[in-house]
C-alpha cells in the first residue's frame, strides 16, 4: 500500500528509476564493488608476477624461497613414506614469495591464481556475450516471424534443452580441445582460450533464447506492436524501436547470472581438463592441480574454489538486485551441477 502511494510520486524514465533503485540496494552495490575489485586484482596479475619475480607458466622445481632469512627449496623432500617424493612448499603467507605455496611444478600458486582469474573472467565474459548475441538473434527471429522459422528454431532449442548442459559441453570440448576447429572463416587452434569460450557460449543459448522468444511472442501480440503493424511501420523498425528495448531489460538481468553460470561451467570443464589447457591457468585448472595435493597442500585447491564461490556469489546478488530494480517478474535458473 505504501508502495502504491510512493509510486504516485516517482514517474521518471524506466532506466533512471531502475538505476536509482539499484543504487539504493546496498547489498547489490557492495557486491558490484567486490566484483570490480576482483576484476582489478586479477588484471594486476602481471604486476604481481614481476613483484614476486616468478614465471607462473614455467615449472621451477629447483627454485628457493627466502623464509626468515633462510633459503628454503620450493620442493621439499617428502618426509612421509619412503621419503622419495617431493612435496611443494605450503603457504608462506608472505606477499610476493609463494604466498599460497607452490604447486607440483614449483610454480607460485598465488601468481597462477591471479592469471587464472584473468582467464576465468575473460571466458565467462566473452561466452556471455556470445550467448546473449546468438540467443537474442534466435529468440527475436523465432518469436517475431513465427511460422516455419519458429517451428524449426524451437524444435532445435527443444533438443538442446533436453541435452544435459554438462554432457553437451563435455562432448564438444573433448572433440575440439585436442584438435581445434577450422570453420573456413575462423580457425581456432587446439588449446586456444576461444574454444571454451565458444563451447560455453553455445550450450547456454537455449536457456536465454527460450524466454526471449516467449517475451517477443507476447510483445508481438501487444497492442502497440499490432498498432504499428496496422499503420504499416516496416518490420525491422518495429523490431528495433519497439521490441528490442523491451527485451533488453530482460537481457540485462540475465548478464550477471550468465557470468556466474559460465564461470562455474568453465571451472568444471577446466577441472575435467577439457577447458583451459596447460600451461595456461584458470581457477578450474588450479583446483585440478590441487587435487593431487589435496591432503598435503590443501590451499592449492582451496584458494581458487573460494575465488570462484566469492565471484559467483557477488554476481548472483548483483543479478538479484538488477532483477528487482528492472523487472520483478522475470526469473532465470542459476547454478548448474
Amino acid at each position, binding site marked *: *500500500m*505504501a508502495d502504491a*502511494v*510512493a509510486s504516485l*510520486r516517482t514517474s521518471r524514465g524506466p532506466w533512471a528509476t531502475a538505476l536509482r533503485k539499484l543504487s539504493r540496494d546496498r547489498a547489490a552495490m557492495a557486491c558490484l564493488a567486490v566484483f570490480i575489485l576482483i576484476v582489478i586484482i586479477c588484471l594486476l596479475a602481471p604486476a604481481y608476477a614481476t613483484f614476486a619475480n616468478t614465471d607462473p607458466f614455467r615449472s621451477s622445481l629447483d627454485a628457493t624461497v627466502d623464509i626468515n632469512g633462510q633459503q628454503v627449496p620450493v620442493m621439499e623432500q617428502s618426509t612421509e613414506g619412503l621419503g622419495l617424493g617431493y612435496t611443494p612448499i605450503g603457504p608462506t603467507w608472505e606477499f610476493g614469495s609463494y604466498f599460497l605455496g607452490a604447486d607440483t611444478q614449483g610454480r607460485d600458486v598465488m601468481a597462477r591464481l591471479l592469471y587464472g582469474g584473468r582467464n576465468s573472467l575473460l571466458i565467462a565474459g566473452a561466452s556471455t556475450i556470445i550467448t546473449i548475441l546468438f540467443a537474442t538473434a534466435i529468440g527475436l527471429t523465432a518469436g517475431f516471424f513465427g511460422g516455419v522459422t519458429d517451428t524449426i528454431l524451437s524444435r532445435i532449442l527443444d533438443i538442446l534443452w533436453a541435452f544435459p548442459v554438462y554432457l553437451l559441453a563435455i562432448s564438444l570440448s573433448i572433440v575440439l580441445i585436442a584438435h581445434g576447429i577450422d570453420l573456413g572463416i575462423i580457425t581456432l587452434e587446439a588449446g586456444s582460450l576461444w574454444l571454451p569460450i565458444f563451447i560455453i557460449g553455445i550450450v547456454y543459448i537455449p536457456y536465454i533464447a527460450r524466454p526471449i522468444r516467449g517475451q517477443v511472442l507476447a510483445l508481438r501480440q501487444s497492442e502497440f506492436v499490432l498498432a504499428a503493424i496496422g499503420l504499416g511501420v516496416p518490420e525491422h523498425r518495429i523490431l528495433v524501436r519497439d521490441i528490442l528495448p523491451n527485451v533488453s531489460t530482460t537481457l540485462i538481468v540475465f548478464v550477471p547470472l550468465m557470468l556466474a553460470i559460465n564461470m562455474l561451467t568453465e571451472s568444471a570443464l577446466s577441472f575435467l581438463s577439457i577447458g583451459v589447457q596447460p600451461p595456461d591457468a584458470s581457477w578450474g585448472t588450479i583446483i585440478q592441480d590441487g587435487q593431487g595435493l589435496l591432503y598435503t597442500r590443501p590451499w592449492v585447491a582451496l584458494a581458487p574454489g573460494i575465488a570462484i564461490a566469492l565471484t559467483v556469489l557477488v554476481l548472483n546478488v548483483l543479478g538479484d538486485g538488477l532483477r528487482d530494480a528492472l523487472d520483478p517478474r522475470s526469473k532465470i535458473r542459476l547454478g548448474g551441477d
Partner: protein
Amino acid sequence: MLEVRDLRISFRTEHGRVQAIDGVSFDVGESEILGVVGESGSGKTISLLAVMGLINDPNARIEGSIKLRGRELVGLEPREMRKLRGREIAMIFQDPMTAMTPVYTIGWQIAEQIMAHEKIGKAAALARAVDLLAEVNIPNPREAIHRFPHQLSGGMRQRAVIAMALSCNPALLIADEPTTALDVTVQAQILDLIRKLRRDHKSAVVFITHDMGVIAEMADRVMVMYSGRIVERGTKAEILLEPRHPYTRALLDSIPPLEGEKPKRLRSIPGSPPSLFDLPKGCSFAPRCPSRFERCAERPALEGGKHAAACFLKVAS
C-alpha cells in the same frame, strides 16, 4: 454496533510519513447498511481493512478507536482478532476471479472457514456449505461444492464468496465493491442477494463503492470520503436529495439521470484527487471545487449533526 472514532492510519514511506486516513469517525447500527462512497484512493477500503485488522504492512500506524459491540479492536491481540475475523466480521472483496485459492474446491474453502471457528466435523461443515450455496442461489449446490473456483462464472464465484463470508453468521459484513468486476445484470442479482441476506441474517453491512447508483439502491445511510477524510454523511435521502458538500454534488452530477431529458454531456469533476504527499492545507477538495472561496484555505470540520458536511458553504443550493 460498530463505532469508529477518530481513526488515523499513516504509512511510513521513503518520502516520509503519509496520512492515508485522517480522523475518520462513523457508526454502523444493527442490521443497517452503510454506504461508503469515494474515488479510488480516498481511503474507503483502507479504513475498513483496519476494521478487519487486515493492515499488516509493518510501515503502517493505526490510531484511534474501533469498537465492535463495545469491544476495542485497535491494539487487540492478533490471536483474538483472528477469532473475530470471519466469525463476527466478514469481508467480500472486489474481484471474485482472484478471491479464492485456485487449487481447492468451493466446498473445501467454505468448510475450512466454518471449521476454523466452530468445533464441527468435516462432513457437517460440508453439509453447511451446501446449505449456504443453496441460500445464495447457486444451482445444484450439492455438486457445486466439488467445483474449483475457475470452473464457475464471475457471478457464481461472487455468490460462493458471499456464501463463505456468511458461513459463520457474522454480525458485520464488509463488502468492498463486490459488483464492480461483474456484468450489469449479474450486479443487480448480487445486490438483491445482499439485501435478502441482510434481512435473513440480520447482519449489518458496510458497502464500499464509487457508484452513486448502487448507493441509491442499497444504503440506509451514506458516508462520502475524499482523500482520507469524511466530507459528508447523512441518510440516503439526505445525501441524494440535499447534498451539502460540493464533492457529493459533483459525484451525483456525474451519474446519468434515470428520467427526463438526457444531458448532452455528463458533468465530470475537473482535475484529479490530490497526492497524499502534498495535501492542500485547508479543504483538500478546494483545488477542484467550483465554489471555493477564501475560507477554504482553512480546514473545515465535519459539522451539522446527523447530516454533516465538512464545508464552509452552509446553504444547500
